């Protein structure tokens, strides 16, 4: 019953199949194409410093996109990551003035855990649609941050040296300046990839997103998975906020808000389905890099802002379409 004929496959199809099995390859190729275009438009731009900068800016985006990837696997989404990151960044920058760094850190992570917990319970127990739930908590979080902000106007703000080092610093290794943020990101990314692929929790994320009833019959308690997921997502967002404040060095009340839509885009470009059950984190990382490079590309183009945005939209569409074409079998 299971004998499948092995007929010789033409070379073109072999390449396609190779890529289809390794969806990362075409994504990386698309990324490289964008970089090459950039280099052609502005010869010399692709240098060590530019690469380091691109990585620095891609990392916070990639971590937030990781939050989206994981929540999207379960058919959800986390729109509160921007607010959470902003909150932890703002609280860190203002609390560090008078507090011990460890205490400031704990204070900064508190709202992250809290919002994650509320999101998780809302989605997992009360079955509120994640989009509404996280949008709601993000509104609430923003409101709280505004109120908090008023109480600390006079205290000023400071960026802890360690965060500045992590956010903006580079360490030359074998002649190449590696952004210090990689020290945080590489283990974090490895952990996410491993969690998704090789742990029970990761399996459950995929399965829950695919067919919740089936997981229930297999003994999975939905609320546990979802609560753990949204808390994880929020904590990651909180960490991103700390990294980001080290990078931008200017606490504001809307610091990470602009990253929310791109984080969703990065996850989707990287091949994660918003309907759940499909996707992975490695694609997301490349997706974040693609978006960051694209931003640079558009910055240096001399054209009206309107035309730039049109181009941005078209390129995002084209990249995703091309990627799908390559990866799709048939």
């Amino acid at each position: 019953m299971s004998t499948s004929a092995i007929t010789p496959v033409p070379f073109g199809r072999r390449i396609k199949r190779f890529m289809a099995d390794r969806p990362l390859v075409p994504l990386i190729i698309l990324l490289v194409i964008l970089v090459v275009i950039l280099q052609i438009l502005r010869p010399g731009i692709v240098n060590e410093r530019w690469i380091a900068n691109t990585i620095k800016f891609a990392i916070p985006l990639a971590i937030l996109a990781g939050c989206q990837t994981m929540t999207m696997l379960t058919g959800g989404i986390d729109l509160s990551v921007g607010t959470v990151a902003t909150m932890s960044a703002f609280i860190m920058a203002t609390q560090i003035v008078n507090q011990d760094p460890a205490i400031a850190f704990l204070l900064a992570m508190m709202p992250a855990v809290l919002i994650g917990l509320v999101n998780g319970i809302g989605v997992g127990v009360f079955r509120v649609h994640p989009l509404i739930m996280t949008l709601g908590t993000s509104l609430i979080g923003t409101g709280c941050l505004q109120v908090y902000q008023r109480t600390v106007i006079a205290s000023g703000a400071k960026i802890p040296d360690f965060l500045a080092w992590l956010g903006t610093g580079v360490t030359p290794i074998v002649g190449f300046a590696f952004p210090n943020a990689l020290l945080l990101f590489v283990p974090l990314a490895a952990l996410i990839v491993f969690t998704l692929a090789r742990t029970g929790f990761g399996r459950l994320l995929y399965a829950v997103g695919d067919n919740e009833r089936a997981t229930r019959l297999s003994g999975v308690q939905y609320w546990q998975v979802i609560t753990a997921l949204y808390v994880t997502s929020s904590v990651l967002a909180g960490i991103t906020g700390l990294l980001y404040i080290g990078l931008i060095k200017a606490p504001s009340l809307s610091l990470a808000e602009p990253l929310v839509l791109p984080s969703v885009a990065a996850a989707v470009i990287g091949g994660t389905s918003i309907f759940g059950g499909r996707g992975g984190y490695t694609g997301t990382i490349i997706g974040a890099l693609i978006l960051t490079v694209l931003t640079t590309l558009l910055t240096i183009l001399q054209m009206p802002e309107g035309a730039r945005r049109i181009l941005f939209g078209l390129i995002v569409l084209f990249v995703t379409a091309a990627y799908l074409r390559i990866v799709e079998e048939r």
Partner: protein
Amino acid sequence: SAAAGKYTIGISNTVQGNGWREEMVCAMKAQALASGEVAKLNIAHRNTDAAGQLEDIRNLISAKVDAIVVNPADPAGIKAGLEEATKAGIVVVAVDQAVTEPSAYIISNNQEEYAYLGAKWLFQQMGGKGEVFYMRGAAGASADSDRDKGFKKALAEFPNVKVAQEVFTGWQQDQAKQQMLSFLATGTPFNGVWTSGIDNVIVDALVESQAPLVPVVGADNAGFVGQLSSVKGLVGAAVTNPGSIGGAGVTLALRILDGKKPAQQTVLVQPQLWENATEEGKAKLKAAADPSLSPEWPVSISIPDWTTYTKDQIVACKGPGE
């Protein structure tokens, strides 16, 4: 001065979470409190567009306030609402930007002059020639296009100054920094940076990437003003764009309510320029610098003749009855 005043004042603002606007709202509250004439403030403060502001203004009319102080989302877009307010006997004062409704009073920072003043100084620093990196605000915002007019006016006076690159920061710190770093990476030569109020991250970016410190013109935000005194080798200027204009708006509204109409419908607050190239300028900067303020807050927290609150009051950010 307790909250024993007699007036209810409505406030409408359409940008939330931005240091300048937060300061503006705090100035309004502080001035209302300091004046002793205001019983209650009714504040609509959220992110929205002109249509949303119309909604807020009409809600304030429904709430039967005595005066409305509004930072318009658009000069022309809220005309209908302001007209209705005037008809309902409400005093209308627009702050920060002008409005087209003729019955409204306007007390505004002169945005065109703001850009002109800074750009002119910058081009002089550049020796009247070279390339400038032009970092605008949010594409499509009316304050941005006003500033663009001023910038272009200065540019026209210096035929040898060219724009190396024009970008929109969207008035967002992170975007501005990334744009600056990308621009630096292109290796394009440039001799000066004019930025529309997103300034301290630009200096940061220059310092971090060890690029030559060219002259930078920004606004009087606390962070940038501090940098002008502390960053070695940085030549630059801060042009004032006081968020405390909100407090001035409240004062104007109260004066009108008390029957003291101003001579003209429009009052323009002229910007000042504080540079660190001369000793005189340095002294001004030193006097203005205020490291205790949030770096996004403009340091010019009061406007002589128009605001009467203390620094403590604006920093406390409490209105009457709070």
